[in-house]
């Protein structure tokens, strides 16, 4: 009896407080709070070896935010970017993501520049039902164990990238292939992608040489490769490793004996290492600013980027941040809400062309189906030092180039 009475009084009390709040000036605050900014958490490795790439990711994300806000936001709600340094460490990235979700109450997370970091962030976000759009390469994130409805992958994955480069190179330059690979997830996933693509061309793998990450001397490996006399040398490593390997291969005169290909040619890497090391090397990329004379959306994105950042052009990994932020914001706009359950179907429904031609997210794994550009490094003309690649082919967006939903473990 007493309990009943108490609960009645409490209810009445709550009702009174509620009514008072509704008529008081606080009511306005409550309504305003709901219309507060759309917050996007952005963990990227500002410190560490990929700092330059990360800064470019921040710039490109700011372009997407600025465009969204200029267009009026989501019925007046403006977007805001909360940048955090993940230090290229999955533990730090997970902690920062927790901070962004628990403390800053972000609506979405976009970011990461490593496979391990994105999987760590993804594990945190999916447990808390917050949408995460990853903007760096990984095959694992598509697989059923890591995927969740809250997971999106705007970046390419190694299977798509290596597949596109392989399909181009194996039919043009020959079937005898040697792999030189950095021995970690990125390298091994790339080699798996090349081998898969090579099956259709009956390639002959003459050697599969692994080197530790952060290697500075390839001089013991390169003569072994020369002795194998392959048609193609496929170098799958990243950043500084790639620059050193290409430089030493050039010094050994290997470019005269075989064609050198790489799954990804980094714009920043090419600028840093100079033309000699990269000359004639063929690789893939998710974006190169030079496609602007063919693709209108790229032209618009580049121009906006140049305007905001003193004439700079966006890099490949940077541009992914633009796509990653923009798709979520447009999804929210179309859904008329930032509620994850409403934004997810809206993003799934997007058929977008924001900066590199048509794209869409595949339903089963939320992988962005998109084109891969095959590029060849060249000597930049004197008047434009940023003009370092020729786009020699475009691997058009095609779900057939992705691993199938069944292979990834998703139910059809």
């Amino acid at each position, binding site marked *: 009896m007493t309990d009943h009475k108490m609960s009645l009084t409490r209810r009445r009390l709550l009702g009174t407080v509620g009514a008072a709040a509704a008529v008081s000036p606080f009511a306005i605050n409550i309504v305003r709070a709901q219309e507060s900014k759309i917050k996007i958490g952005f963990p990227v490795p500002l410190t560490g070896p990929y700092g330059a790439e990360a800064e470019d990711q921040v710039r490109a994300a700011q372009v997407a935010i600025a465009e969204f806000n200029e267009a009026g936001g989501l019925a007046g709600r403006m977007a805001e970017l909360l940048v955090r340094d993940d230090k290229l460490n999955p*533990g730090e990235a997970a902690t920062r993501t927790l901070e962004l979700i628990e403390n800053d109450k972000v609506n979405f997370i976009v970011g990461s520049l490593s496979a391990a970091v994105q999987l760590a962030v993804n594990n945190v976000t999916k447990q808390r039902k917050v949408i995460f759009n990853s903007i760096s390469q990984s095959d694992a994130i598509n697989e059923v164990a890591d995927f969740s409805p809250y997971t999106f992958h705007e970046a390419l994955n190694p299977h798509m990238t290596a597949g596109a480069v392989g399909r181009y190179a194996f039919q043009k330059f020959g079937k005898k292939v040697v792999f030189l690979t950095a021995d970690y997830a990125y390298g091994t996933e790339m080699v798996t992608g090349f081998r898969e693509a090579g099956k259709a061309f009956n390639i002959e793998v003459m050697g599969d040489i692994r080197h530790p990450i952060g290697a500075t001397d390839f001089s013991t490996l390169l003569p072994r490769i020369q002795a194998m006399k392959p048609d193609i040398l496929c170098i799958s490593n990243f950043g500084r490793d790639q620059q050193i390997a290409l430089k030493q291969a050039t010094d050994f005169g290997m470019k005269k004996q075989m064609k050198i290909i790489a799954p990804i040619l980094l714009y920043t890497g090419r600028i840093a290492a100079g033309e000699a090391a990269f000359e004639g090397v063929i690789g893939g990329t998710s974006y190169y600013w030079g496609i602007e004379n063919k693709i209108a959306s790229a032209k618009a994105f580049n121009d906006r980027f140049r305007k905001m950042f003193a004439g700079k052009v966006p890099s490949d990994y940077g541009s992914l941040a633009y796509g990653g932020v923009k798709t979520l914001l447009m999804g929210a706009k179309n859904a008329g809400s930032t509620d994850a359950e409403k934004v997810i179907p809206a993003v799934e429904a997007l058929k977008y062309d924001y900066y590199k031609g048509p794209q869409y997210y595949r339903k089963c794994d939320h992988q962005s189906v998109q084109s891969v550009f095959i590029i060849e490094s060249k000597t930049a003309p004197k008047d434009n030092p940023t003009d370092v690649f020729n786009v020699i082919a475009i691997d058009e967006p095609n779900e057939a180039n992705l691993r199938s939903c069944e292979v990834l473990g998703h139910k059809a």
Partner: protein
Amino acid sequence: MTDLADNSAKRLAPSGFLEFARRHRTLLAALFLLVFPLLVPFKALAVNILIYGLYALGFNLLFGYLGLLSFGHSALFGAGAYICGILMVHVGMPWWAGVLLGCVAGAAMAAIIGTFAIRTSGIYFAMVTLALSQCIYYVFYQATGLTGGENGLRGVNVEMISIFGLRLNFVDPLTRYYVVAAFVIVALWILSRILASPFGAVIESVRENEARARASGYDVRRVRLVTFILSGAFCGLAGALQAIHLSIVPIELMHYETSGLVVMMALLGGMGTFFGPFVGAAVFLLLENLVSLWTVHWQLFVGAVFVVCVLFFPRGIWGSILHAMEKK
């Protein structure tokens, strides 16, 4: 090194508050940990400080009290995290079993490394522990099926937990903090008991004068091994708590940088003091988080603080505070 120990001869001379604090150090630490999350910018950082604080305390048992500098503690921390994670993800064990067995795994790993390493001392001990921890790093790195390798182990998810019939939501940041804090407080109490026991005095006697300890009839090698194993248990527990806190186990946890980090934390806070390493961990993580919000050159800043501490406060932050209070 002369006045590192806060439980040296001065313990016998009571001096008001300080003596009270020394007697009830676990209780005071526990009370402090209850209000701690209010003082920290965000809860996940507070939990990290708890975990790294415990890791540093475990390390300090070996470094500060026994006087052996190990550069391989990441293997103990990492083993706790991985075993807890693997048992939960691949075997489907409940979280509490994972945490307890993670603690056991830290001790077991310490027994393996310790068996080889305690035969040496000084710089050789540091090198042997470093080398062995690198071997273990490589084993875990290559065992991709179990550990996830380069990508790390994911899915160490703990959601609703029930403790003695009480249902708690572990995803809630404050709940997560207090659950982890409960483990840390129990560990603090056990550590405090060990140090206050006769065995604790033997540990310090080995540090102060090995020959005299041996002459007094103590088996120095066994004391070292047992201390190493106890240190491993604390570090393993810290690792297991890290696994359930972040719901992932990254391979970086086993990297030798994690070993170096704990040395830095212990030195910063004050080695050989009971609570110093905890203070060191808190100061380091707070600095790292606050400074990296406004500059990408946070390492320069944290490094400068470290250099200043080593040059002008060789007792560490906590050690210097204790020293100043004792002088009064």
